[in-house]
């Protein structure tokens, strides 16, 4: 599958001065990485949120998947907007709770368990995952089921490249993910608003789709805790709740795995949760969305099927009744 090269280069759309300065840093970071690992070009993960990340600067290398849609404002949201308006109930149900409380979460060391229908399973350190991949930037639309949206420059690597390392067997029809359960550092988990740990899942062909993305960074920097550090999923054509944060477990399954929101309210949230303006949430419309950061009197814009990625992903659902499998 071919993707369009971005019409807007990331450096042009990011006003942040630090962002402009990253090229100079990159050279240094790569040199340091090269010395440390004896292998130039290997991506490393700096130890703290907000530190600059080394990733591919070449637009031809990187797949920029912001598919340009008519009449849409595609200016990326600011760092402040992206990091201070989060649904991350592990830290509280208020939009600013994650920014206020996620700092206490220890994200290093970080281990991930891989299990189920795959040839390679076991426990892995986060660094084992991230090292072999060149990181790349992708600017994706992000649409919440609550009918607001943003445009976000993530840094990460394709989910498929990660999953293929484990050699899933032919019985691997789905892949399930779990978020960390650590109520001592995640105060929201002390309240049973949802069933903890948070669980999500994808059909294996969705997971292998080139747009499905594993994220470790934002705006060229290490992902802040409130956005799901150290490792989160982004599935840009689905509602945001599918894009699970702080992943500690990946399981290949034959059966469709249970997912947190579809268990909490099965009539309101489905397993697929594809962005679909023609299927309303039982309590509100999904036809339009408020783009955070749009001019005050014109916040609303139309929601696009599959969040504007229909050309790329609609084929995954050919023949499926999307009203039933919402």
């Amino acid at each position: 599958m071919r993707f369009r090269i971005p019409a807007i280069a990331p450096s042009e759309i990011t006003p942040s001065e630090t962002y402009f300065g990253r090229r100079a840093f990159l050279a240094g970071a790569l040199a340091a990485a090269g010395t440390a690992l004896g292998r130039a070009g290997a991506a490393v993960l700096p130890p703290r949120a907000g530190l600059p990340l080394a990733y591919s600067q070449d637009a031809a290398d990187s797949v920029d998947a912001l598919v340009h849609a008519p009449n849409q404002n595609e200016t990326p949201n600011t760092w402040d907007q992206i990091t201070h308006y989060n649904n991350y109930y592990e830290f509280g149900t208020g939009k600013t709770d994650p920014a206020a409380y996620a700092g206490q979460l220890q994200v290093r060391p970080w281990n991930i368990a891989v299990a189920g229908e795959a040839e390679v399973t076991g426990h892995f350190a986060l660094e084992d995952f991230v090292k072999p991949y060149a990181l790349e930037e992708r600017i994706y639309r992000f649409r919440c089921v609550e009918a607001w949206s943003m445009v976000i420059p993530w840094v990460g690597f394709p989910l498929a490249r990660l999953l293929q390392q484990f050699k899933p067997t032919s019985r691997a029809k789905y892949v399930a993910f779990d978020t960390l359960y650590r109520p001592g550092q995640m105060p929201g988990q002390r309240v049973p608003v949802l069933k903890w740990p948070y669980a999500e899942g994808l059909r294996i062909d969705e997971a292998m789709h080139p747009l499905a993305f594993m994220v470790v960074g934002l705006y060229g920097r290490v992902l802040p805790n409130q956005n799901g550090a150290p490792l989160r999923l982004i599935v840009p054509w689905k509602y945001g709740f599918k894009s699970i944060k702080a992943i500690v477990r990946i399981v290949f399954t034959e059966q469709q795995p249970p997912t947190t929101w579809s268990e909490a309210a099965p009539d309101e949230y489905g397993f697929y949760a594809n962005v679909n303006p023609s299927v309303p949430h039982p309590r509100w419309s999904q036809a339009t969305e408020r783009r955070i950061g749009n001019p005050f009197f014109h916040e609303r814009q139309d929601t696009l099927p599959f969040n504007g990625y229909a050309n790329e992903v609609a084929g995954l659902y050919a023949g499926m009744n999307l009203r039933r499998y919402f």
Partner: protein
Amino acid sequence: MIDAPNQPRRGLTVERRYRWIVKPIVFVAGLVPLGWMVCALFGWFGFSAGVDPVKFLELENGKTALIFLLLTLLITPVRDLARQPQLLRLRRMLGLFAFFYALVHFSVYVVLDLDFDWRMVGADILKRPYITVGFTALVLLVPLAVTSTNRMMRRLGRRWIRLHRLIYAIAALGIWHYYWQEKIDVRTPIRYALVLAVLLGYRLVRSRWLRRMVDRRRGAVTA
């Protein structure tokens, strides 16, 4: 301590004390939430409306309207239990503040959230039950606000009391509206509902108690 109306007290009658001191203080206090929201919107004095100011205004105005409804309903129990009959003089103002904030809440939704798209407003009111419920509460508040003047009170007489009992239903509808729009965490709306239950429960108990008192007296008279 019971203040008899128009008894001089520290040089001021109750009438004058309320008119020149208590009511102005309550009026200014009632504008504090509005002032806070304006400051937050413009980022003054370190207040912030956050990343999504439209949602902030909807939520905060709606919650403020509900709080004023509950304060309005709180007057009667406090008046009874603290034996402060003059508190009743504040009830109208509190009720009108509830109406004011509910109106701002609805205006933000129509003007800022839906960009004056009246077709969408109509569809929401008809098709989205939680909006139907909230809109009903707002519409029911209108006749109460309109008949809140002294002249209307006199003109309607006993019917005024019956009409203004609508506030019980309005408060319940308002809190139901708040509860119904929550995605999953309904703890705050439940707290509001518990306060309302206590306030309405008090009235239920009081009316039963009053009836029993009346019955007993009647019994004593006929015996």
